[in-house]
């Protein structure tokens, strides 16, 4: 029963997608979208074109994808490795929070792209600069979600550990951090989408490859089909990452949300 129902939902979901593509294709063929908007078919052609042609941006599609993945992966991983422990410590140890919070609260509202000029001065225009921009984009939601997650630890659970005589650090590791896991995962998903979102901006830093770079070059050459291709690829990769994350989350967060 359940599987049949799921089957029907899967049909419904793919129907939305197919209808969207058909409407887009028809509207494009009838000229309703103007001269510069490509149809799905043209985007598909652009996809096959970019598989073995380096024009107009100078790299194959796969090179651009790998370059973008590498940049955002480095930035994202650093943000996670630095941001989550920082948020957890700030949430658990009041003194630490007092110490860090003033700086964090000022850095927090600054958009990641505003760091671009300073980054160029500090580290040039290579991978380091781009990864750092993505780091700033992903960092904030890592910190805030880890912080909020651990602050929401049920006091009764903390008291359980304390009445057994657990140290504050033991309680932090065995009660605080597990309590924060669902919120951390929500933060990671936000961080993932903001880091993809910032990618295009980061790759405007005189990059020589990458999906964002491909889009901005295609724009200069008036290749709308490749612009849309870049958008579609970014969208699909983001979807794929979210999917992978959900699998990891189901594995790690077996107890369900608190």
């Amino acid at each position: 029963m359940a599987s049949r129902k799921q089957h029907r939902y899967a049909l419904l979901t793919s129907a939305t997608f197919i209808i969207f593509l058909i409407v887009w294709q028809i509207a494009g063929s009838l000229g309703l979208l103007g001269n510069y908007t490509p149809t799905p078919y043209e985007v598909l052609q652009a996809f096959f074109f970019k598989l073995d042609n380096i024009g107009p941006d100078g790299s194959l599609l796969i090179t651009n994808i790998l370059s973008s993945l590498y940049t955002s992966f480095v930035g994202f991983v650093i943000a996670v490795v630095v941001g989550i422990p920082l948020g957890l410590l700030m949430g658990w140890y009041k003194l630490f929070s007092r110490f860090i919070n003033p700086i964090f609260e000022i850095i927090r509202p600054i958009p990641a792209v505003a760091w671009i000029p300073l980054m160029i001065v500090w580290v040039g225009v290579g991978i380091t600069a781009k990864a750092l921009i993505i780091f700033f984009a992903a960092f904030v939601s890592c910190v805030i979600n880890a912080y909020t997650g651990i602050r929401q630890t049920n006091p009764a659970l903390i008291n359980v550990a304390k009445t057994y005589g657990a140290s504050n650090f033991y309680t932090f590791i065995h009660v605080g951090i597990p309590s924060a896991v669902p919120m951390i995962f929500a933060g990671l998903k936000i961080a993932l989408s903001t880091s993809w979102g910032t990618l295009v901006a980061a790759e405007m830093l005189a990059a020589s490859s990458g999906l964002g770079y491909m889009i901005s070059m295609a724009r200069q050459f008036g290749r709308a089909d490749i612009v849309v291709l870049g958008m579609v690829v970014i969208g699909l990769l983001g979807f794929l990452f979210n999917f992978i994350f959900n699998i990891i989350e189901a594995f790690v967060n077996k107890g369900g949300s608190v």
Partner: protein
Amino acid sequence: MENESKIRVDHLTKKFGDLLVLDDISFEVKQGEFVCVVGPTGCGKTTFLNLLTRIYQPSSGELYIDGIPADPKKHNISFAFQEPSAMPWLTVSQNLEFGMKIKKIPPEERAKRIDRLLKLLGMEDVRDAYPRQLSVSAEQRVIIGRAFSTYPDLLLMDEPYGQMDVKMRFYLEDEVLKLWKEFNSTVIFITHNIEEAVYLAERVLVLSNKPAKIKENIKIDLPRPRDISSEQFIALRRHITDSIKWW
């Protein structure tokens, strides 16, 4: 072992600012005794418990276990809370293990006790389930089991059955008595349900309205299993009810 007393509460007083919540409470509990504390709602029962577990520090007075001031790091204290307090990210058997891990009980011994508790609770078939997959009453039983798992010197229970329906209550009360006898623990059980107190306790301490004092210390000398409709039972229940009324 002076006078065989396991727990000695000595002139315990707690003030929050100017508000006197507990006023000079003294009593003793023997090894293996089951004591219920009853009192009107809001009389400071929970404050009283939080003092015993050292979540709060007393304003004056002291709690001694075996003649030494109580300290969760030195003594083996267990606490079953009113609200659901199983760790949602741990399975039933991991939850039972939680306290024993903190007490650094060796793994083989932990496994042995987990099996014993699961058997006593009749929860062997849900040992790998997570709390969200259990009913509230089943989760509460895991908490009771966890409280007994460390073979505590002192087991404190704060209205653990407050949320249960009558049928479940009787069932769990019998279960707690079973565990208490099996493990020979010393229990202080806080409740506002007088019937429950008379059913469970060997001795009932009646607290007065705020600031809480010990108003009466009643020995319950009824045979077990107790008959809640027997004359003596009803007489004791009426007596305690009258004692609690402050109007």
